[in-house]
């Protein structure tokens, strides 16, 4: 091949690749514009309001409100509670996240059967979930506070170790683990950036944004749903709501996210 020809080929290659680089840059700019424009109003506020109403309303077989629920900061303290979850609770002798703790309160205070309290954790079109609303309210009461999930109790440390194991565990027809997508910085799936959840800087930014209103689902989704949905995409079975697996994974992630400010409920794709 003559050198002129080679130069010509090189020019063609350049001409072909250059617009791609540009296109990618403008795609990212466009997405950023999109996210900025959405920030104006977050429908999650509708969930927060409904959650507050549910929290204060007398409900269940015992006809009492959740106002004496202990979310870890003492009975009735909602302010700041979400920033200190998941954590160990002596009365249940378990590590619990906000949602599994709300189930406990619905059972012990309001007299719901456990299976009823757990029945409808994720909304569907035309069917609200009380859990999504309550979690939105509880999370919003920690807005601006630094996440500080404890890791002092032996059961909290054990949950972390089990979470670590499960986070890296590959399985199923696609060989996926959580770490397939969430162990490396700067990667994306389609156009969605994937946070490296074991990187404190990134974990602090994202773990603290759940629950979030997801425009793709037209609803607030909670951390329990985020895990359920990840397992779905991982071609894993349906993860039980408020399972120990979910709690362990949350404790594991919270460890890296500690120190980040709570910005939940956020607004997401």
């Amino acid at each position, binding site marked *: 091949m003559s050198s002129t020809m080679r130069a010509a080929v090189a020019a063609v290659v350049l001409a072909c*690749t250059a617009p791609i680089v540009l296109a990618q840059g403008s795609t990212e700019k466009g997405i950023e514009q999109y996210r900025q424009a959405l920030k104006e109003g977050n429908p999650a506020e509708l969930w927060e309001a409904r959650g507050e109403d549910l929290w204060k309303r007398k409900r269940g077989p015992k006809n009492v409100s959740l106002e004496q629920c202990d979310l870890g900061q003492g009975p009735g303290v909602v302010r700041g509670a979400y920033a200190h979850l998941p954590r160990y609770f002596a009365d249940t002798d378990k590590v619990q996240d906000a949602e599994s703790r709300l189930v406990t309160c619905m059972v012990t205070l309001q007299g719901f059967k456990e299976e009823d309290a757990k029945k409808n954790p994720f909304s569907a079109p035309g069917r609200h979930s009380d859990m999504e609303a309550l979690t939105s309210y509880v999370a919003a009461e920690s807005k601006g506070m630094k996440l500080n999930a404890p890791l002092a109790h032996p059961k909290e440390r054990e949950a972390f*170790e089990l979470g670590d194991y499960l986070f890296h565990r590959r399985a*199923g027809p696609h060989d996926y683990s959580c770490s397939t997508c969430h162990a490396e910085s700067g990667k994306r799936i389609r156009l969605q950036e994937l946070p490296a959840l074991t990187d404190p800087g990134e974990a602090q930014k994202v773990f603290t944004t759940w629950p979030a209103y997801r425009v793709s689902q037209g609803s607030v989704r909670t951390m329990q749903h985020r895990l359920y949905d990840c397992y779905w995409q991982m071609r894993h*079975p349906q993860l*039980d709501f408020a399972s120990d697996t979910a709690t*362990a994974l949350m404790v594991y992630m919270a460890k890296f996210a500690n120190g980040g400010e709570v910005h939940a409920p956020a607004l997401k794709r």
Partner: protein
Amino acid sequence: MKTTMLAVAGLTIMAGCAATTQLTENERQTRAEAMLKAGFSKGNKAMAERVVQQDETQALCSKYPESVPEAIASRIQESQQATIRYPASGNLMGDWRQGEKIAQDGWGMRFTDMGSPNRPMGGNCYACHQLAPDELSYGTLGPSLYQFGKARGYTDEVRRYVYGKVYNAKATNACSNMPRFGHNGILTEQQIKDVVALLMDPASPVNR
């Protein structure tokens, strides 16, 4: 023994403020596995079984999340290489247009879309790779495959490599993040050929 000790040390450092690990590696595994199994109490039993039961490659790759020791890596690659079934006809090229559809399609094997005789599963290639330049929504978990064939040459050797890679990525990279599309029955022989064509046909948009 040495690797176990290293793994434990690594975990301790990672755990940071959790001063010491409390569980032995065996305890951790036994408890985590039991916990996982208990968390799939609803839904499809066969699906749960397949996830609870790891194969050897999955178990080994899970054990060494950072980097798998060389000896184990070669053992995995050898066993996975042996799984690859090339088409009896010897023809590895299908239709790139079908390949593009497969690359766009992420349907299949989730608990809401477990498969159907009337609906082939997707390859979801764009989730992780750049392919045709018109598709702006591509992932970056895997390398860009834009101009794949053009850059490497449209040879039998490269076609065979691509077929094998899609069929079982672990044959050449032990703990690759890429699913084993042929080995795990995600894509059919014809679908893999179509994907090969997407990457290796000079007329494919990937090579334009």
